[in-house]
């Protein structure tokens, strides 16, 4: 049996799955809902889904164990993690674990949910494309040249440590492609503290959807790239050099680096 459905949503809270089903069905997506991870595994063995939405805190098998189980069974369906307990650790693990592509914190609006679903689906499609072109299917893949000494938080953002103890951060090109073009960029001000795993900037895509850019490293903003702010297409054209977002002073880069991939 090989039915292709769009979304499988897993959450032990019935109101959440019902809401997701409602919103997604209204957008024409086919959605299957389940309250526990073992049933979800059965569904995934039997049929095919384009995307899985999975809660992290579940009683029987938690979200990260579910990811490990998927990896063990060789199921490559991309997963978006959801949680009502949006800690830094949950966010960062969701972006870096094998199998998970993105992360959404509860509660979310219908638009926020759809934005993340569409972005993740596009990301998965891009990864499929790369795979079929013979490239490695990996979240840290890049279409444009990027510096050697930078670290990535999933497919979202990158950080580059500088000699003076400062660090530069920016957005990854796969994320920019998945959000389908950047129209506006909203940045924080110098002096503000950024936290790894928490959005540090918001980007509006061409279709008007709003995307939070998750910060790859803790630190205080020393300098903001005003060029990028006034001309967001710079970020898209040269995301790793001229299109950087902030220069920060990280208090403890070693601690943050353990989550990042080079």
């Amino acid at each position, binding site marked *: 049996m090989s039915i292709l459905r769009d979304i499988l949503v897993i959450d032990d809270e019935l109101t959440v799955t*019902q809401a997701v089903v*409602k*919103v997604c069905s209204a957008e024409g997506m086919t959605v299957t809902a389940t309250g526990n991870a073992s049933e979800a595994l059965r569904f995934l063995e039997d049929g095919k889904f384009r995307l899985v939405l999975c809660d992290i805190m579940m009683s029987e098998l938690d979200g990260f164990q579910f990811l490990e189980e998927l990896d063990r069974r060789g199921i490559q369906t991309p997963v978006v993690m959801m949680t009502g307990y949006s800690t830094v650790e949950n966010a960062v693990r969701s972006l870096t674990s094998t199998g998970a592509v993105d992360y959404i914190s509860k509660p979310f609006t219908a638009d926020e949910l759809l934005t993340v679903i569409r972005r993740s689906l596009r990301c998965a499609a891009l990864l499929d494309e790369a795979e079929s072109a013979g490239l490695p299917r990996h979240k840290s893949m890049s279409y444009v040249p990027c510096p050697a000494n930078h670290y990535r938080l999933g497919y979202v953002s990158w950080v580059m440590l500088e*000699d*003076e*103890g*400062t660090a530069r951060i920016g957005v990854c090109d796969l994320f920019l492609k998945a959000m389908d073009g950047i129209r506006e960029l909203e940045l924080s001000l110098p002096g503000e503290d950024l936290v790894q795993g928490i959005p540090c900037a918001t980007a509006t895509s061409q279709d008007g959807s709003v995307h939070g850019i998750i910060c790859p490293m803790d630190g205080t903003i*020393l*300098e903001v790239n005003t060029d990028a702010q006034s001309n967001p297409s710079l970020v898209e054209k040269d995301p790793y050099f001229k299109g950087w977002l902030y220069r920060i002073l990280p208090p*403890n880069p070693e601690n943050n680096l353990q989550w990042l991939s080079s």
Partner: protein
Amino acid sequence: MLDNKIAFKLTFGVVLTALLAIVIFAWFNIQSQSKSLLSEVERHARQLSEAVKSDTEYDMLRNDRERIHESIRRIGQQASIDRIRVFNKSGEIIYSSEESEIGAMVDQKAESCYRCHSVGEPLEHLETTERTRIFQPHPDSPRLLGIIDPIYNSPSCWSSACHAHPESQTVLGVLDVTMPLTDVDQNIRRSQVAAGILAISVILILSLIVGLMVRWWIDRPVQELLTATRHVAGGNLAYRIEVKTDDELGMLARSFNSMTENLAQARLQLFQSDKLASLGRLAAGVAHEINNPLTAVLTYSSYLLKRSQGKAEVQNDLNVIVSETIRCREIVKSLLDFARQTVPKKRQADINEIIGRATAVIENQLSLGRVKLVMELDADLPKVTVDANQIQQVFINLMVNALDAIGEDSGVIKVTSKAISVHPAGFLQIKRALCPKRHDLVDRMVKIDGKPAIGMRFRKKETTGLIYLSPMYGSHEHRLNDMPPIEEGIELLCPECSRSLLSEEEVCPRCGSAVYAFEVPLKGMVQGCLADGCGWHRWEQVDSSWNDEFVEVRVEDDGCGIPEAQIPKLFEPFATTKGQKGTGLGLAVTWGIVDNHNGTILVESRVGVGTTFIIRIPVKS
């Protein structure tokens, strides 16, 4: 109860010592007094016995017994004489002032005979001192002093008409005079009573004075300390002892006060982190429990909002639901954000070790051999509480700067570490300065030596402007923007609320001009004089405090040096002197890190000679 009191113990000890001294003194005094009185009586008795002997000698030779009787009776009637007796050799009383005992025999063991007859053969000569005896015939009678005077044979005796005595006899008889010691004993008793009265009055006065002194200087402060410890033990950490003296107890009180202050701070911190931890757990629980139902509310309402295009009334209502639910989400998120605010990652660390790690990082840049790195590290450096990664970055930045200053030439970088102790005045940065209405005068946009300055507005008649003081307490640097002299009726105002910053009651004790005053939160008032060349300042809490301990690290190079004009702007962002080479952030970052550790950073530089950066990190953070 009483014998537990320190005042009683001290008084008792002092009084006991005094009493002992008085007793010893009185004993010796009475001894010598009675000795001299007795010798006086003895001399008198001897004179008397000599007088009796010579008075009766003629009558003896004439053997006129009646006259001898008469003489002895007459003399014996005197009040100072008990009796006068003459014994013959066989012990018979021949003459006596007591007529009744004439003719009576006296035993050789009697007190008057005993001196000579105690050893078998009677003595013929007696030393003057041995002739005297003191005795008491009955326990009730007064003491008596007796003196015996042997009557020796002489040629006139055996050759006289009566031929009463043969020539062979040496001693013919004994004259015995006894005198009562009533007066002497009375005198001694009087002295004893006087000594007793003296002792008692000394004890009373001494115990009163010592008691009062102990009470005033020891008991009271100790009682205050005791009350304070009870308060602190009971949890009242705000209790302070009023320090009145500078003696050891005053110092004890002062250090007690600072101990409770530190304790209060530590408790507050502990309480704060405990509170944060429980708030964190609460926030996590709330977030988890509330976010699921909120998800349903938010998704459905935002979904309905999308679907209700064209129905303005419904849309308005749904908008309220969506925006209010988003508000709830923000509240929960801010709870989680707040719970995440943890204490800085500061730990006890050895500065020398951090310097070692920093040099390891830049070592490959030194490997060309042009630049020599000299280390003079103090092995006994106290540990400091710092973020080791940040401090390491400070040293790396300074050493990289030194390398850049040396450039293509050869040179030496010297890194020195040592422990120093300096008075806070001149090194303490005022980070907040409040006007009477509690506006912060510290202006982050204007910096003196890289540190945000204290801004005040001056006004004199029509002219007005801003003046900036250095935030380093006691440094007396200020930027005057064409400010008229301070003494001529000038006003100093808070730039925000225009409240006067001049002290109303006080003038500068040094030059008499007006003084400014502002408050540093929790640390009291700072006052100072702005008159040219005066430089008077006062900040009681700092002026009276002890020296602060710092670890000082100097990074010296013999490179190109920094022009004097550039030094004030050195720590500001993008003030690079390296042209294209640097980002202009290195020293700003360095300054930020040192400032975060409540440290100070100083620069000494001469063009062509070299630059020294001096970093001081407080040992007590």
